């Protein structure tokens, strides 16, 4: 009799556990909240009139995707890249070059050449042959997305296969970004150098905003599905204990390369849309400073959460746009302080801290449910404690 009752309890408890642990891929609150935010941003052209705010919205969405790409590799897999802007920047430059060359076909420069003005200043009389294919816009888009992804694959194949990660990876990616920046400045005849590429017909208006919004939503859903799938679990285990993951038979390097490529693809998409939306690309968009800035958006929002990068990018960038004007130099000090504060006080970021709080609460409630239901559940309770409350270890090694 006693035995049967216990079995029933176990069944009941495990059902409760399942209900709690198997959260749906995309929970209801996320669907409702996400739809609300998407509606709020997407409907701006109807209720808002400020063109500046409209352009900011598009920009911020690109920043959010960029931050998400960092979150995928850093927050979920533990690879800190300080050169993610390389992929963003290449995507942006390819698109900007393509748009610029198309623009000059109809808008001749000062001296009558139908080539981008920076080429004319540097003594070129026609577009170099290796750049002419970029005139074809679909080809340019393919290039803008494929080249960074391929580059990321090469980088990953070289470094991750040899267990180069952590600090080494951070330093190498940092140098990568610095060198790309130097390259762009040095070869100004092809890249516009210090001035960057400006003055081309960019895409603005509500249709392109909706396009950016759609891509953003798609990427956030992809990220959520990816990180909550079986692959995502492996990625997290690579982050938390690489050695153990490897001993369990997972090819850690391949998982790292895969997620690095996905991340580079996202960054490149963000860069390409950014160039098309803003109409200005400069060498700063490929540099180490920009990369690290994006890392801090992710950290503020909450790394290891999918919504975090979105929140972080909007909050930090928003604050920058509204405060840096009035605070000028002091804004930099605030940014510096933010780096320190996020590390010392809130390593989980805003969303991460909220999620933790919610998790604790949910666990407390489910405990009450268990205790109220029936007596004699000590054994199950033990099981429950061991199985359902994994110690949250979110330190990056």
């Amino acid at each position, binding site marked *: 009799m006693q035995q049967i009752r216990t079995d029933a309890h176990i069944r009941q408890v495990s059902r409760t556990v399942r209900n709690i642990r198997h959260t749906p891929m995309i929970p209801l609150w996320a669907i409702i909240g996400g739809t609300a935010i998407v509606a709020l941003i997407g409907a701006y052209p109807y209720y808002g009139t400020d063109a500046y705010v409209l352009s900011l919205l598009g920009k911020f969405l690109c920043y959010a995707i960029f931050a998400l790409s960092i979150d995928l590799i850093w927050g979920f897999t533990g690879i800190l890249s300080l050169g993610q802007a390389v992929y963003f920047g290449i995507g942006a430059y390819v698109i900007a070059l393509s748009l610029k060359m198309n623009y000059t076909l109809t808008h001749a420069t000062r001296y009558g050449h139908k080539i981008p003005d920076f080429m004319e200043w540097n003594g070129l009389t026609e577009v170099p042959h290796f750049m002419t294919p970029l005139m074809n816009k679909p080809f340019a888009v393919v290039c803008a997305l494929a080249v960074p992804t391929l580059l990321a694959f090469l980088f990953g194949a070289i470094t991750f296969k040899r267990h180069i990660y952590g600090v080494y990876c951070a330093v190498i990616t940092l140098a990568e970004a610095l060198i790309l920046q130097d390259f762009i400045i040095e070869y100004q005849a092809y890249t516009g150098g210090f001035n960057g590429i400006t003055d081309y017909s960019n895409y603005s208006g509500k249709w392109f905003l909706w396009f950016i919004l759609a891509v953003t939503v798609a990427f956030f859903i992809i990220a959520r599905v990816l990180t909550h799938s079986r692959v995502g679990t492996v990625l997290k285990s690579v982050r938390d204990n690489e050695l153990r993951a490897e001993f369990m038979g997972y090819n850690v390097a391949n998982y790292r390369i895969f997620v690095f490529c996905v991340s580079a693809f996202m960054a490149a998409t963000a860069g390409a849309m950014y160039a098309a939306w803003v109409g200005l690309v400069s060498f700063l968009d490929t540099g180490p400073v920009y990369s690290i800035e994006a890392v801090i958006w992710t950290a503020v929002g909450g790394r290891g959460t999918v919504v975090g990068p979105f929140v972080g990018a909007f909050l930090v960038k928003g604050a920058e746009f509204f405060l840096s004007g009035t605070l000028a130099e002091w804004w930099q000090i605030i940014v510096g302080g933010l*780096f320190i504060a996020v590390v010392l006080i809130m390593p989980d970021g805003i969303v991460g801290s909220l999620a933790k709080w919610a998790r604790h609460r949910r666990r407390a409630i489910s405990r009450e449910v268990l205790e109220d239901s029936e007596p004699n559940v000590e054994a199950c309770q033990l099981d429950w404690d061991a199985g359902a409350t994994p110690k949250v270890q979110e330190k990056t090694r």
Partner: protein
Amino acid sequence: MVMQSIITQLLNGFSVVAILVIAALGLAIIFGVAGVINMAHGELIMVGAYTAAVVGKAGGNTFIAMPVAFIVVGLLGLAIERGIIQWIYDRPLETLLATWGVGIILQTVIKLIFGPELYYVGAPKILRGGFHLIGRLPFPWYRLFLIVVAACLMALVFVVIFKTNLGLKVRAVRRNRAISGCLGIDTARVDMLIFCFGSGLAGVAGAVLAPIKSVSTTMGFPYAVDSYMVLVLGGVGNLWGVVAGSGLIGEAETILSFIFNNVIGRLLVFLFIVVIIRIVPRGIFGYSERQ
């Protein structure tokens, strides 16, 4: 003629190597022993250079500026360690973020104090001009001085690490932190002193490098990145790694820049580094840990 230009390039390369050694030494100690990724290293060099500028205004020269910068920046390092880094030793990748924040703050504060304009620090009188080593190409005295300083600092660090009581503890902590702690070494104190000493060395680097570069708030960052590349190539936790890394990077960069141009030179050196660490992932003199 070809021979002559090759030798000149090699000599120029030596001074680049010296600069790299000077800049990377402080970082090698902090990174190698305390395990802190100090992204503010470039800014500490920058503060050292500004100290040299202030000393220069007050009538001193580089020789006076070096110890002053060591003390000023060493104390600054102490403040950073006590205020921030002591809480996050166990999270190396996050020290990177925090010290990046420190770097931004230092840059801004220095800009607020000294203004955005560039400062120029002259070399001491006896080190001005140059001498003719071969043919008619002059080799500046100051470059020779840099090589001497690099050698002296290297010797100083060797003495501190291998001949003093502190150095013994440092090596013990480097090898096995937990057991050193059990044997009664105050590991937190060792970390603190090492951070302080490494920062001081960064200050000296700034004071020495100030005359060859215009002093500005953003001057430090390239040095920091170069220093990290030196460590990645040479290996962390071994002082010979600093020499090997600086030697390879400095000479390769000078020669490749001479053959192609600066940017191509840097790109090739970067690829070279990636290839090398692909072969030896922990650097040439890397400390292989048994786990």
